[in-house]
């Protein structure tokens, strides 16, 4: 009797453990079953490399579903987030791991942890009311030769907000990587006559290289997957990005903006957009796994 209970419970645990596999399978099935046929119907080249996204267009040409502008937009946002967020994040992590006085650390660390908890809508709202007006004045000065109005909703604004949003990821993982470096590396450097700063930057940081790189990769994943904050500050023009101070649309934004009213092929093209996004995330995940496996 006792053994039966043990047996049943073990199977229940096993069943629960398999739900995450089931979830992945279901997600893949529902995305791919709807998305892949759409890609074939549109034509893979037309879909991935087409520069026109005009799903509601009638007439002779008919609707066009090219998501290259959104892919380029996502890549721009990602690069912008890296340029802004990564140096700040890594230096902050170095600060926390090696430079920060202990008393200051116990106060500052929880404060910076707050960054991870702020909802993306709040980030987006902040970007909308604070960053966008600043960018608008820049855009009015420098981009008057370009068509369309300078609203300030732009690649730059999105990059700044995304740069701030990836900070907690970059900081937390880089800091952990640096703390995992054996203390005697540092002591050895000191014994050879290097100063504190020199030992930190030329011995400790290079030793944590793969962990730091992993933090960047994870940050990139967060930046590419971010939706609401980007939608609120990026302008969301579905055309090839023309200027840093003008708008662009990300893959995520494309889905959230149009899913509400899309139908038929348009709807499936949006699901196919999610498939592309999924592939991006898959690549990032594999890179991350390879990076962290090497370091262990």
């Amino acid at each position, binding site marked *: 009797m*006792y053994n039966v209970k*043990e047996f049943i419970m*073990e199977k229940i*645990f*096993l069943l*629960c*453990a398999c*739900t*995450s596999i089931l*979830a*992945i399978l*279901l*997600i893949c099935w*529902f*995305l791919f079953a*709807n998305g892949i046929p759409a890609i074939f119907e549109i034509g893979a080249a037309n879909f991935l490399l087409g520069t026109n996204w005009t799903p509601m267009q009638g007439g002779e040409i008919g609707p066009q579903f090219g998501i290259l502008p959104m892919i380029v937009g996502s890549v721009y946002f990602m690069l912008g987030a890296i340029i802004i967020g990564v*140096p*700040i994040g890594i*230096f*902050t992590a170095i*600060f*926390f791991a090696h*430079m*920060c006085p202990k008393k200051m650390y116990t106060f500052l660390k929880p*404060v910076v*942890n*707050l*960054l991870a*908890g*702020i*909802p*993306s*809508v*709040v980030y*987006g*709202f*902040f970007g909308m*009311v604070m960053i966008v007006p600043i960018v608008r004045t820049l855009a009015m000065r420098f981009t008057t030769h370009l068509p369309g109005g300078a609203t300030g909703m732009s690649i730059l604004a999105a990059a700044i907000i995304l740069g*701030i949003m990836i*900070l907690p990821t970059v*900081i937390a993982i880089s800091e952990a990587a640096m703390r995992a470096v054996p203390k005697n590396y540092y002591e050895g450097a000191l014994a050879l006559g290097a100063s504190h700063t020199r030992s930190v930057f030329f011995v400790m940081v290079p030793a944590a290289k793969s962990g730091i790189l992993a933090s960047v990769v994870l940050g990139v*994943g967060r930046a*590419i*997957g*971010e*939706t*609401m904050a980007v939608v*609120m500050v990026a302008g969301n023009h579905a055309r090839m990005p023309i200027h840093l101070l003008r708008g662009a649309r990300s893959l995520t934004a494309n*889905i*959230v903006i149009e899913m509400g009213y899309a139908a038929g092929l348009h709807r499936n093209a*949006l*699901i196919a957009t*999610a498939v592309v*996004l999924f592939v991006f*995330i*898959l690549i*990032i*995940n594999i890179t*991350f*796994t390879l990076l962290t496996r090497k370091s262990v």
Partner: protein
Amino acid sequence: MRTKIIDTALFVLTWLFAGVTLLALLSIIFYILINGIPHLNPSLFETQFTTENVSMFPSIVSTIIVVALTLAFAVPLGIFTGIYLVEYVKRGNRLVIFIRSTTELLAGIPSIVYGLFGMLFFVVFLGMGFSLLAGSLTLSIMILPMVIRTTEEALKAVPDGFREGAFALGAGKLRAVFKIVLPSAIPGIFAGVILAIGRIIGESAALIFTAGTVAQIPEGLSSSVRTLTVHMWVLTSEALHLNEAYATGVVLLLVVLLINTFSAFLAKKLTKG
């Protein structure tokens, strides 16, 4: 001489960038608090939402219900998975590696993809419609990796002596797990669950197409709801209610502050005890 300049430059840069991080955070928090607190009118907390008072009260209630429901689905599932991975299978087992990589993949999927999946599967395929249930189920898949990971870590931190002691006293595996190991891992799991609550409250993209955007106190599992973050998004996208959006931001920030403090408090208690 040159090394000294580089040293100083790096030193200054480190402090500078750490300062930038702090400045970014503080400017977000204070900008929203300063602009939002004056607009926290009592009319924002009236029980009925109308287009005039744009009350956030129904959204607050909805958020609490969504959190409770999501946890009810995800926490038992996550804890049982964690128990299986840590207590029942040997390390290096293929299934474990497979499950672990799927949870990692789950953790990396963007929330909008969850939203899309939730819409295709729960809302359309299972015919739930835009509802509390569909939203909570979608979110529970989303936070599952978080619960699994914290459970695993908390269980691993329990010394093997506890298990051996239980077995030596004649307890079966199940009894050892539920009476000895799990209770001592509870604070760790709890800290993770609190962070998961933070994620649920902060989520918006996964909810718009699963739970919908109707601002009402839900009447049942099948009624559409609007959580606080979605409420804030709707207010800003309508662009008529910026002041109310600020006020909603204040409420959200306070909740985040509360959650982080509580979680940090628990974590501190753990490392001390």
